């Protein structure tokens, strides 16, 4: 909706592009050919009933699961695999740990259950990756971390352990932690659904701010109000396929009956 520098430029490489993505767990076919394109600087909200594969899709993008079929490109680069020569043929090869980590560095992810490191303070949580992954100096990392924590409104809680913070505060630390890696794309998997109704607002506000700043975001959520206000693109999934897709207006005018039905339940 707002401040989209690149998405009006049709030639820009999509931030994330999923092409006929399949995912199976054992014999359970969870994603059955999902296509999705996320433009840089845009906000995509994924809706869908429980078990429809929303989380699985996000996790595939961040390589927490391995693809069974299809391809996902981030920033125009195929993730998880590369082509190598073998016996004169071009074949796919799985990336190694280091290459995977490099690709993940472009993506920040925020989980439903926060997953803060309980043995570190808020500040240490945010400093962890800059110091140990990007090998930034301690002092510099500390300044960065303080900056990010202030950005999410937690400048006063630097030395608190996660167990001393409320849910909303914890989720904001998690966001700061992801932001400290300067990702190009942020992935949110139901970031507010483990929170008390009153605390949801805190986190949604931070996300709103990010969207305004032009961050590319993919958000799985049940907060329809948020979707309506912030999303550039709505993707409705059910049974492992994308059922309906479009601008935020489709929330109020769903065409597919399944989507209609879903919206009735959630609203």
């Amino acid at each position, binding site marked *: 909706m707002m401040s989209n520098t690149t998405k009006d430029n049709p030639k820009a490489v999509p931030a994330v592009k999923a092409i*006929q993505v*399949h*995912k*199976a*767990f*054992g*014999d359970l*076919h969870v994603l059955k*050919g999902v296509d999705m394109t996320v433009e840089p600087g845009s906000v995509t909200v994924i809706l869908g009933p*429980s*078990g429809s594969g929303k*989380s*699985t899709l996000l*996790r595939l993008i961040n390589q927490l699961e*391995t*693809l*069974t*079929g*299809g*391809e996902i490109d981030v920033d125009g680069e195929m993730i998880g*695999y590369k082509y*190598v020569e*073998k016996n004169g043929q071009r*074949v*796919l*090869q*799985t*990336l*190694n*740990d280091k290459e995977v980590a490099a690709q993940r560095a472009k993506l920040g992810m925020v*989980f*439903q*259950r926060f*997953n803060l490191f309980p043995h570190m303070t808020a500040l240490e949580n945010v400093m962890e990756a800059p110091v140990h992954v990007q090998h930034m100096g301690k002092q510099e990392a500390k300044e960065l971390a303080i900056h990010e924590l202030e950005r999410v409104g937690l400048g006063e809680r630097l030395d608190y352990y996660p167990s001393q913070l409320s849910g909303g505060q914890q989720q904001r630390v998690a966001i700061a932690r992801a932001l400290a890696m300067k990702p190009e794309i942020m992935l949110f*998997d139901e970031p507010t659904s*483990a929170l008390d109704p009153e605390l949801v607002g805190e986190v949604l506000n931070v996300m709103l701010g990010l969207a305004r700043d032009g961050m590319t975001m993919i958000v799985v959520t049940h907060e329809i109000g948020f979707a309506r206000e912030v999303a550039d693109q709505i993707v409705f999934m059910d049974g492992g396929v994308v059922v309906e897709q479009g601008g935020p207006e489709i929330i109020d005018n769903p065409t597919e009956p399944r989507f209609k039905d879903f919206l009735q339940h959630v609203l």
Partner: protein
Amino acid sequence: MANKQVDGENLDIPNRIKALPVRRTGPVVAAIVVALFAAMLVQGLITNPRFEWHIVWKYLFNENVLEGIKYTLLLTVISMAIAIVLAVLLAIMRKSINPVLRGVSWFYIWFFRGTPVYTQLVFWGLFAVLVPRIGIGIPFTSVEFWSIDSQSVITAFNAAWLGLALNEAAYLAEIVRAGLEAVDPGQTEAAKALGMKRTLIMRRIILPQAMRIIIPPTGNEFIGMLKTTSLVNAVPFTLELQFATTAISTRLYKPIPLLIVACIWYLVITSILMVIQSRLEKHFGKGFDARPIGARGKRTPLPGKTAGEPKDDVNKHNEAVFTGMTA
């Protein structure tokens, strides 16, 4: 984990990815080195003349050795059984509101963990010497209602299991305590809300769930106990396995092959115990390791597990963490 099937191999996935695995030299080299070591070890074991395998073979089924096994097992089972009961009591006492009980439990654990079991066994062996008669009477006076010669009660066998059990209880008490504490407190509340009384809650709700956590370290202790029984020659109780083989070796002056005989039997029994342990773990794991059936909504976290994202499961986690960690 490693030899699990490929995901979706029975499904029709048009654009299935077939990729070469990433090349990991680390684990391969490590595996080769380790395998070589193992091979050398086995070769050394078999070909080294010092081991005198013919003597090992000859005495493997010697009747004293077989009787030794019987008593070793008997001691292990009796003393572990008693130790477990005692340990549960101690663990509960340790948390009592009554300071005397709490203190006694603390002292017990401190004392019995703090002194060597060998020494304890020596004292139990000398019990009849130190305390010639056991009686019921009024303490610190000479009034006595009933008494018995301790030599006839504390026989060598009784002293042996008594000493082992009392010592083991102290170690197990800590394990039991950790197990009880690991059960979700919500379980007690739910049970209370149903009008269950404390003993009932402990018996029906807490203990069965704690078992899951208690069993693996108890398996360790059980296997340890098997070997600890050999210390009962301090009492002296002289019918268990280690003593039986040592007696033969002092007569023959062939310690090495007879140590191997004992080793083999201990290994056999340990293997059986490990099988039993995994059975027990399965039994007390019921309801915990079941996979969700049908559509899965948000699952309640299992006791002792954080909720996590719905798709996290421990196996996957391990795979994730450990895959290639060995590189």
